[in-house]
């Protein structure tokens, strides 16, 4: 593939922006969590694009892909904890709307 690396970065920036947007405007906690996953993927894509950019025919720069692997791992952990929290809240409230986070007022 001969696509210039910056096009990959464009795509990643777009995905990241979509994730941020979703995080800020959606109320459903599960969807908010998905938006965070979207943001993580944007970061992964950037890591890979940059790795491709900084690799030469002789030596691959593998810091980026390794980071991406760790990100996938962390994403799994965060998803598990997040969903467990949602279940705990659901048991208490029978609702998963972010607006139900309203017992405390700033």
């Amino acid at each position: 593939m001969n696509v210039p690396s910056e096009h990959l970065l464009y795509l990643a920036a777009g995905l990241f922006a979509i994730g941020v947007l979703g995080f800020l405007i959606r109320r459903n906690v599960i969807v908010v969590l998905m938006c965070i996953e979207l943001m993580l993927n944007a970061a992964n894509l950037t890591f890979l694009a940059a790795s491709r950019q900084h690799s030469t025919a002789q030596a691959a720069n593998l810091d980026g892909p390794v980071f991406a692997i760790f990100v996938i791992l962390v994403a799994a952990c965060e998803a598990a904890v997040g969903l467990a929290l949602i279940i705990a809240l659901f048991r208490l409230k029978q609702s998963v709307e972010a607006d139900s986070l309203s017992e405390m007022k700033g």
Partner: protein
Amino acid sequence: MNPQDLLQLFDDRALAAVAPLLALAIGIIVLLLSGVIRAFESLRAPIVVATLAFTGWLVASNFATVPGSVIDGTYIADRASSAWGLLFVVATLLAWLFSHRYYAESERPFQVEHDVLMLTTPLGMMLMAGAANLIVFFIGLEVLSIPLYALASFRRSRARSVEAGLKYFLLGAFAAAFFLYGSSLIYAATGSLQLAEIKAIGLHGPLALGGVALVMASLFFKISVFPFHLWVPDVYQGSPTPVTALMATGTKAAAFAFLINTMFMLPKSAALAVAVVALVTMALGNLGALAQTDVKRMLAYSGIAHAGTVLLVVAGTLAGDPESSGALHAALFYMGAYVFTAAGAFGLLALLERDGERFTTLEALKGLAQRRPFVAAALTIFMLSLGGMPLTGGFLGKWMVFSSLVRAGLIWPAVVGALLSVIAFGYYLRVVIALYMQPVSERDAALPSGQTSAGSAAPAAIAAAVCAVLVLVMGTLPGLFLDRLP
């Protein structure tokens, strides 16, 4: 690299450097196993204490021998990171002691899980403080954060606690995503994740600076700096108080440790901007605290203000503080004093907290000096130290922060910061007034004094007393600590 070379990464120095982490990991696993077997239940506390003590000893010996940069330069065990490590161990130990007998009977079945999670957090903090590579830092951040998300919502039967955990989680994950995207941009610009290499290459151009901005934003979130401080009051108030103590002290210290290590990423011209952000944070924290009637929430706002104060050292360094390690010294000493002060204050609140939130309101503290003079005296010491009175550790912390600014020539931020800490006394003194100068409110007068159960909370009480004494020692004989700064 060849497979044969791998082993060379793990020489004696590397083992010494990661020994504290290993000790913690082993402690965690042993603790988990002890939870499986009923008969070993009584071993829980000794295991936790022994693990932390052993870890502390290993960190202290690293402080003396300094293994240095290890494992292909991804982790550094120097005097600075060891000093931070000691702070983390102490913070965790204090939080754990305060959690003793804190939870209700219904929450006890998960006590082992609670202790395992608590024991995991210093591992994350040490990775953060010693990280010389963005991946190592990120893993450390998550090793710290994920247990904290669970701990924050540990009182599952309380909506407030679960909400605090969820809120912390959502914003924490959001911040983590910012960090990741930011470091990916830095990587795209420099081709490296090693801090030393990034420093050598230098960060130029919009891509790199955008990445730095995102990374800093996520760090600012962790240390609760404007404009990423909004989560703090709710989360601190909703979490179980010992966990709040850990978040306020350990997490913040770890994030500051990394921030000090990554200050070089910020351009010199950002000094004034950082100073303004820090001052705005102080103002918002102090003004927010002024309006609170719940002491726990008030301390949360005060924590924001303190984060702003420490951030001033970053501004000082960027503006050209001639002392190369001025920021590190100031942040270390400040956070050291803050660990004992804030942990002690939260610990006392945990001690007083029996029937719901009754004892965390100012109203409930009225006249406490008559009923429990020692608790009142200790709380007064903590309040004065938080305010930065001389004779307490808080004062020298403040001194070092302001001196960094003054040396760098940032006089007006120092003056504004000093005046903002006058506001802070407005609410710290309110606590003292409630303790000493107001009669017991009638609602509370009828209730039993609570002295009866003090015996069972002895570890927490002793920990608080030790904190109070240490705060005073840090203020009167600071040489004991200052001479040992890295």
